[in-house]
Structures are given as structure tokens and as C-alpha cells.
């Protein structure tokens, strides 16, 4: 029973954070048992539902797409009669059947038709869609189309695109000071080029959408997308209806990695088109090969650099050009190539610098977001530069890196943002010591001197990654929290769950804020009808943005409950405290559920929205100046490899990682992001090779030819530590830091360790200059080149 406490005379508004006791109540961090992923029990039981697992409503139609066989051509004839006549076919759709706008350009560039009209711009571009009673019938029917083409000149790769230089959007320039005089007057100067390949996302659950027509113009879409609001906008535009008629729902994705930020738009829109026209539910799940062929990937880049530096390896001036294969349309290539420039400094200070992007249009799938979003490619340029300077000055690359790290007085980026949290050196030195880098490096040199065929290599590389969408408007989020009268809590927010543990983190945020057990909280499927106008779950920002929004909603509810308790039980706000044992009301304790019931009885609203907009950020692309990032995420890794100098084959032997996640919201999830991100980055830089032939056909369109890391490729010795006690430049949710993308770039250490091993064949006198992916073929070629250089022992 609750004793009636003494009367409280509350006056004036309640200070939210004080009232909620957040300041005086530190959450126990260490020793807390790891909470499994919010869906873990369902995943291991096989009962977690993906879209393909949902029961199909009666009459569901299945869709298959007819794809272009040419990279660039005018369509001179489109004979679909045999397709229409094929068994099971209910309807066939071309561009002419689109009631609204035939455009799904995410950046409103009007260059990405849903179905090609008159002209095809890449091999694999959807030209028509077939809806049939079964998936097999639809796929069989597609093959019966007769399309004739008049070929146009096709530009497939960067080399072919560069002379004409047709861009998908305006390039960006970042400049601070003028590097030209420094370069001209340099004591030491070098320039060069580096190629890095693209990457297929290979989300294990492929693209998929299920559209359910409702009354009048209403439609519900289940889409495997990171960006439900954009799917809603695209579907509305394609159907020519208002957005309020379209609901998009996402319970979870089976992986996404950026590949479902815009690439789901096509499939959702096609499903919507068919459902709308036929009045029947419509589903599309392309087969894995088609998924490879149709959708965009990570951008491959040609990175050109020119730098002046001192004899001890300190950079004085840098000029770089970062050219990217963007594919046939803009998609997100503008912001991706921008982010490449934003990270072409990685963690290093360039006293005078000019960086330019070249987002080139090609007749290939439209490249898109992929974990890191251009940042990894930009960082490769910075790290190549460090490697070049190390060989030119005869130093350990680590010493060159350390000499160039951002430091007090040398802390302004090429985009004129000051790096306030200078964590680079502390992190690198900590890892250098904990990984025993120097002693191992010496041991490797000694080993290599005696080993004729097998050579070892080691490298330590840092990561500094800017957190925030560089399009400032996207840095906002909303949430909706309901407390039910049994004390259970339902949370909805704008973020989507793709395995990264976002929902687990949001549960943690709400559990801490309301001091209720995690089991009392359920996250419902992301739904555009609940939280509107959301941003993509991308840019590593999911927990930062949605966590703050969920916290805000929970705090509003908490304030209402405190307010109610003060009135009802005659207390002062400071006498009401939410604890794990229940809500303390003066001298007694009431369960959260009982308080919720009592508040309901007193007609207190138990539902609230929350909103968050990241403060202090601004960016002006035209002038290349601003504060695009709220803070930076830091990390560093040491990789050790062994290569076979006769075959180019290699193994990763040991990896040490020190990564900064701030105050972790969920340690198991954060560690998982670091490990998974690292291995994915390693795949990008080593075995994952996209090959387009001269006709623009993707030759590696299945896991049989496109090799992502398997279990055996991972290092047998993998040591991951979370950095402690580093500076944090921002007031994030419970002091945590974004972790989705940054760890991917820790894998750059693998590329440089391979380089170090290769360099041994020329006694470390020549820069190995390994391009990416460093497949065994490329490693072997580099070994040969260095052996032939005559610099060997």
C-alpha cells in the first residue's frame, strides 16, 4: 500500500532531467550481464519473420522483371505478346502503364526511371514487369520477350568515362589554403594513383517487397528497406497519389549495409504498381543473380594524389582527385563522393589542401550507399599517402602516421571544421603498446630475412569517421511511446532494424529512462503511419538520432507521471524517483504498472511523441565550409598477415582492434558491429572483386564467383577492445557513439599489412602500392613488380 505522503506544493515548471533523476543516477556499466539481441530468441528458433516468411494473402501475384541485355541502347522494338500469352500471366507492365511519375531518383535528379522508356542505360536495367500466379510462371514468361535494340556507345569504367567527364551531379571541392606553392617548392614531393574496387552488399536476405492494396487509393507496402519514408514517397509518386495513402512497414531486414537505402525503391514501387493495377496483393523477390545484376554497389574509385612533405615525413601540402564510377544515374553518388572527400584526410592534418571529386556517369548499375558511404575510399587515399611517404623517407609507416595525426594547433580539417576531440594519438599509442607492434614488427623482419617463400607483414592504421548526415536536414528523428495500463511499453521510432541491434539499443534507452525492465518494452515494426517523415537508417546515426527521440518521448511521459504523482500523492517532484524496484513516492514504492494504472484513472495521457534534431551542425557545400559532423568516431587496428610469394595467396594471422564507442549502450551489439564491420571491410579490400566485361555485363553475379569472406578467412587470433576514457566531442544519447560504419575502415590495416609483406621482397626499399581488392593475383603481381625492380636483396 502507498502511504499518503506529506503535502507537496509544487510551483513552476519541472526541470525534466532533474525531475527524472537522470543526473544523480548513474547506470551500472561494468559487470552487467550481456543482454541478447532483442530478436535473438526468435532468430535461433526460426520464428523471426522476414517478408518472404509472411503468409501470402489469397490471390497474391508474383512479379518478375524483364532486364536489358544491353549497356546502352535505344529500344527499337518491344514485343511482349508471347509474355502476355504465357501460362499463369495475369498482367504485363511497361513504362507506359505507370499512372504517376516514372522516376525513382532518390535525390530528385529525374534520371532513374522505374521501367526503361525508349532507352536502356545499363545491362540489367528493368524494362518491363510480369505479374503471374506463381514466381516460376512469372520468371518463365519473362524469357519469352522479344526486345530489339540499336546500340549506343557505352562507357563502362572510370578510364573510359574520364576523358569526357560527364558527371551525375556537380563535383565538390574542399580547399583550405593553397597547396600549389607548397607543392611547387617542395623539398620532397610525390604523386601517384590508386584504384579501389566496388563491393556488392550481399545482404543475406535479398531485395523484396509485398504490396497489399486497400480501399480507394490506399496501399500498404512491406518493404525490406532502410528508408521507409522514401519508399512511401516513391510509391506515392509512381502511383500518382498523396503520401497519406501509402503506408510502408518494416519489421526487420536480413542485412542491408546501405544496399537497401535507395535500392529497395524499385522493388517496392513495382509491387505497388502491380497491386494497384490488378487489385491483388503483389510480391517481388528477385533471384540472387538478378539482385546482383540490377542493384547498385559500393563505388569503385580512381584516387590521384600529389603531396609535398618534409624529410621527416610531415605533410606540407596535398592535392587529390577522387574519381568514382557512379553508374547510369545520380542515386546517392553526390553525397557518397562528398563523403569520400570528407575522409580523404582520415586522421591526418593537411596544412594546405585541395580535394576534388569526380562523380562520373557510366553505363553500369547506379552505385549507391554501402557502409562507410565513400568514406572508406577517401581514407584509402590518405593511407596510401602515408605509405608512400614512409617508403620515400625510409621510416616505419606508423611513425609517419603518428607524425601527421591531428594534434593541438594542427586540428582543422579540409572542410574547416575543428577537430575538438583529438583522440588519434592516444588511441594509436595505446594500441601500439597493447598489440606489441614494435616487437612484432622486428620479429617479422627477422623471420622474413630467413624465409625464402612465405613472408609476413604488419600494419597499424587509424580511423577517424565523421558522424552526422552531411545533408544537415536528415539529422532529425521522431519516436512514439505508449505506456499501457499493465505497465508494458510499446516504442515506435523512425529507425529500421537490419541486424545492427538498433532496436536492442532503443529498448536499453527507454528502459534506462523509465527504469523498467527490458522485457516490459517492445519495439513495434517501423511504420510510416506512426512516425512520419523519417530519415534513412544510415550514416551510423540510427541510435544517435532515434535514441534521443525515444528518450525525449519517454521523458515526456515520465514528467507527466511525476506531475500526476505530485498532485495525487501530494509530493514534491524530488520525492518521486523511478528506480528498478519501482517508483519511489516519498517513503513508499509503487510498481510502474500500478502508477500507470492510477495515472490512467486520473485521465493522464500515456502516449507521447519525441523528436530530436542534432544541434550545432551546418554545412555549405558551395563554399566547402562548415561543421558537417557532430563528432568523430575513432578507432585503430593492427593486422598481421602471411603471404606466399610464389602464388600470391595469403592468410590473416592476427588482428588487434581498439575502437571507441563512447559509453556503450549495448556492449555485445557494439562488439558485433566492430567484428562484422572489420570482416566486411577485409572482404572489400581482399577477395571481393566485381568484374564488368567490355559490354558492361557483370561477370561476378553470384557467390560462386563473387567471394565474400567465409568463416575460414577470418583471423584465428582476433582481439577487440573498446577504448576507455577518450574525449567525446558531443552530448550523445547516454554518452554512446555511433558504431555502424567506422569499424569497416579498420580493415585498411589488412591491405597495408599485405603491402608490408610484399615490400619485403625488395628489402622494403620500394613502396608496394597495392591496389584494392588485393586479390592473390594482385599480390603476386606486386611481388613480381618489386622483384623485377632490382631493389631486392
Amino acid at each position, binding site marked *: 500500500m502507498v502511504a499518503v505522503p506529506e503535502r507537496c506544493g509544487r510551483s513552476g515548471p519541472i526541470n525534466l532531467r532533474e525531475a527524472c533523476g537522470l543526473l544523480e543516477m548513474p547506470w551500472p556499466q561494468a559487470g552487467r550481464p550481456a543482454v541478447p539481441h532483442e530478436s535473438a530468441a526468435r532468430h535461433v528458433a*526460426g520464428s*523471426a519473420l522476414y517478408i518472404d516468411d509472411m503468409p501470402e494473402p489469397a490471390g497474391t501475384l508474383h512479379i518478375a522483371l524483364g532486364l536489358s541485355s544491353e549497356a546502352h541502347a535505344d529500344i527499337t522494338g518491344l514485343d511482349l505478346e508471347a509474355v502476355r500469352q504465357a501460362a499463369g500471366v495475369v498482367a504485363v507492365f511497361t513504362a507506359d502503364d505507370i499512372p504517376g511519375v516514372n522516376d525513382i531518383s532518390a535525390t530528385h535528379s529525374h534520371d532513374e526511371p522505374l521501367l526503361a522508356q525508349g532507352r536502356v542505360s545499363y545491362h540489367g536495367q528493368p524494362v518491363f514487369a510480369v505479374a503471374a500466379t506463381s514466381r516460376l510462371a512469372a520468371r518463365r514468361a519473362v524469357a519469352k520477350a522479344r526486345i530489339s535494340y540499336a546500340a549506343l556507345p557505352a562507357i563502362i569504367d572510370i578510364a573510359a568515362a574520364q576523358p569526357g567527364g560527364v558527371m551525375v551531379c556537380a563535383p565538390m571541392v574542399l580547399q583550405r589554403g593553397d597547396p600549389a606553392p607548397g607543392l611547387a617548392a617542395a623539398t620532397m614531393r610525390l604523386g601517384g594513383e590508386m584504384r579501389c574496387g566496388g563491393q556488392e552488399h550481399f545482404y*543475406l536476405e535479398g531485395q523484396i517487397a509485398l504490396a497489399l492494396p486497400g480501399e480507394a487509393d490506399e496501399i500498404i507496402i512491406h518493404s525490406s528497406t532502410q528508408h521507409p519514408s522514401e519508399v512511401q514517397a516513391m510509391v506515392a509518386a509512381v502511383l500518382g497519389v498523396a503520401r497519406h495513402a501509402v503506408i510502408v512497414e518494416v519489421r526487420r531486414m536480413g542485412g542491408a549495409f546501405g544496399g537497401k537505402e535507395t535500392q529497395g525503391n524499385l522493388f517496392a514501387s513495382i509491387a505497388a504498381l502491380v497491386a494497384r493495377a490488378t487489385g491483388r496483393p503483389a510480391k517481388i523477390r528477385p533471384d*540472387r543473380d538478378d539482385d546482383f545484376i540490377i542493384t547498385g554497389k559500393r563505388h569503385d574509385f580512381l584516387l590521384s594524389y600529389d603531396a609535398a612533405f618534409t624529410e621527416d615525413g610531415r605533410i606540407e601540402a596535398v592535392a587529390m582527385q577522387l574519381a568514382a564510377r557512379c553508374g547510369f544515374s545520380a542515386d546517392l553518388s553526390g553525397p557518397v563522393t562528398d563523403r569520400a572527400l570528407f575522409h580523404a584526410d582520415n586522421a591526418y592534418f593537411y596544412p594546405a589542401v585541395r580535394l576534388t571529386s569526380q562523380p562520373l556517369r557510366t553505363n553500369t548499375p547506379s552505385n549507391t550507399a554501402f557502409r562507410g558511404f565513400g568514406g572508406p575510399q577517401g581514407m584509402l587515399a590518405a593511407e596510401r599517402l602515408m605509405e608512400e611517404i614512409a617508403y620515400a623517407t625510409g621510416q616505419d609507416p606508423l611513425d609517419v602516421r603518428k607524425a601527421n595525426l591531428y594534434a593541438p594547433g594542427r586540428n582543422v580539417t579540409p572542410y574547416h571544421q575543428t577537430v575538438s576531440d583529438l583522440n588519434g594519438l592516444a588511441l594509436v599509442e595505446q594500441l601500439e603498446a597493447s598489440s606489441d607492434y614494435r616487437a612484432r614488427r622486428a620479429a617479422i623482419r627477422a623471420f622474413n630475412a630467413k624465409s625464402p617463400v612465405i613472408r609476413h607483414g604488419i600494419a597499424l592504421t587509424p580511423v577517424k569517421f565523421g558522424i552526422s548526415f552531411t545533408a544537415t536536414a536528415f539529422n532529425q528523428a521522431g519516436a512514439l511511446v505508449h505506456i499501457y495500463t499493465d505497465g508494458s511499453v510499446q516504442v515506435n521510432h523512425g529507425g529500421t532494424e537490419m541486424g545492427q541491434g538498433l532496436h536492442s539499443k532503443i529498448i536499453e534507452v527507454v528502459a534506462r529512462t523509465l527504469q523498467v525492465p527490458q522485457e516490459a518494452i517492445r519495439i513495434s515494426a517501423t511504420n510510416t503511419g506512426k512516425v512520419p517523415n523519417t530519415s534513412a537508417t544510415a550514416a551510423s546515426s540510427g541510435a544517435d538520432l532515434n535514441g534521443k527521440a525515444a528518450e525525449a518521448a519517454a521523458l515526456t511521459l515520465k514528467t507527466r507521471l511525476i506531475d500526476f504523482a505530485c498532485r495525487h500523492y501530494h509530493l514534491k517532484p524530488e520525492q518521486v524517483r523511478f528506480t528498478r524496484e519501482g517508483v519511489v513516492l516519498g517513503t513508499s514504492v509503487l510498481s510502474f504498472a500500478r502508477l500507470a494504472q492510477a495515472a490512467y484513472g486520473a485521465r493522464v495521457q500515456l502516449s507521447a511523441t519525441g523528436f530530436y534534431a542534432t544541434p550545432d551542425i551546418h554545412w555549405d557545400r558551395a563554399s566547402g565550409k562548415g561543421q558537417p559532423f557532430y563528432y568523430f568516431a575513432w578507432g585503430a587496428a593492427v593486422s598481421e598477415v602471411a603471404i606466399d610469394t610464389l602464388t600470391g595467396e595469403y592468410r590473416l594471422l592476427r588482428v588487434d582492434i581498439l575502437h571507441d564507442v563512447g559509453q556503450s549502450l549495448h556492449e555485445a551489439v557494439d562488439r*558485433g558491429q566492430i*567484428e562484422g564491420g572489420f570482416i566486411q571491410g577485409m572482404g572489400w579490400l581482399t577477395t571481393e572483386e566485381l568484374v564488368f566485361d567490355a559490354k558492361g555485363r557483370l561477370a561476378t553475379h553470384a557467390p560462386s564467383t563473387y567471394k565474400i569472406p567465409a*568463416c575460414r578467412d577470418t583471423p584465428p587470433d582476433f582481439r577487440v577492445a573498446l577504448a576507455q576514457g577518450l574525449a567525446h566531442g558531443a552530448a550523445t544519447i547516454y554518452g554512446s557513439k555511433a558504431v555502424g560504419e567506422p569499424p569497416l575502415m579498420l580493415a585498411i590495416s589488412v591491405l597495408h599489412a599485405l603491402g608490408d609483406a610484399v615490400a619485403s621482397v625488395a628489402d622494403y626499399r620500394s613502396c608496394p602500392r597495392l591496389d584494392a581488392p588485393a586479390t592473390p593475383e594482385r599480390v603476386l603481381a606486386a611481388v613480381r613488380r618489386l622483384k623485377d625492380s632490382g631493389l631486392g636483396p
Partner: protein
Amino acid sequence: MPMIHMTVNGKAVKGHAEPRTLLVEFIRDTLRLTGTHVGCDTSQCGACVVHVDGHAIKSCTTLAVACEGAHVTTIEGLAHGTDLHPMQEAFREHHGLQCGYCTPGMIMSAVDMVNRKGHELSEHTIREELEGNICRCTGYHNIVKAVAAGAKAMQGMAKAAE
């Protein structure tokens, strides 16, 4: 269409299947057991692994008619009611999953591995044996830990059953 019969997760089932119907289609579409996933359609990723007569196979490249009369176990057949199988429990405990799409196939392969190789599995053995199962999210580190722990825990299960 021929009628085929199997014992799936201990229950006798039957259903129509075309000669070309894949086992995974029969399991997912006819029996509505959707814990078995399709990742690649081409025998590469292992998301579709089930046990047929006690052996792990990839159900995306097995014909349903070839399993006439067989005993099939899917991920749904591992747990006893709400009690998870030790290998399931290990994946949950050790955070051996992120998006979860590969998880059922991983667990089915892991149980098969224990059946063939015993309960004391070295990390090296686990890495070699999991070659046919792709995970794009986790980097495998926790999966390896989960399999090792699950293998040990299965020994307890075997003992308890004795």
C-alpha cells in the same frame, strides 16, 4: 502432381509437389515452416540447411521428391516446446547473430558438425566445417564461440537423456 510423404520434425506430413519442386519450397510454401531461409538460391550460402535422415543438406538444391519417405528436421524441430536446443541457446547467449537470416542454417550445420565430430570442437575445426555457411553480418567470431559452447552443452544434453 505427385503426392510426397515425409516425417518432418517428428510429424508425418504429405503434400503435392511437382517433380521440380525444391525441398526448400516444399518446407516453406507447402508446410509453412519459414525458419529455413533462402539466401542465394544456388547452394552457396547455407541459409537453407536442414537435416535429411540425420545429415545436413542444402534444401535449395534438393528436390522434394528425392526426400520421399525421409525424416527431415528443420530449425523449428530443434527446440522442445519453449526449451531451446543447446545450440540455439548458445547462439542466443553468445550473440552469434545480427540480422539473423543466416542463423537457422548455421545452427543446423553446427548440430550436424557435432553429430559428426563430437563435442570438443577446436576453433580451427569449426572454421573449416562452417565453410558452406555464409554470414554477412557477424564476421563469424561469435558464431565460432557459439558453436564451441553449443557443442559442449550438447554433451550435457546427451548425458541428461541417458
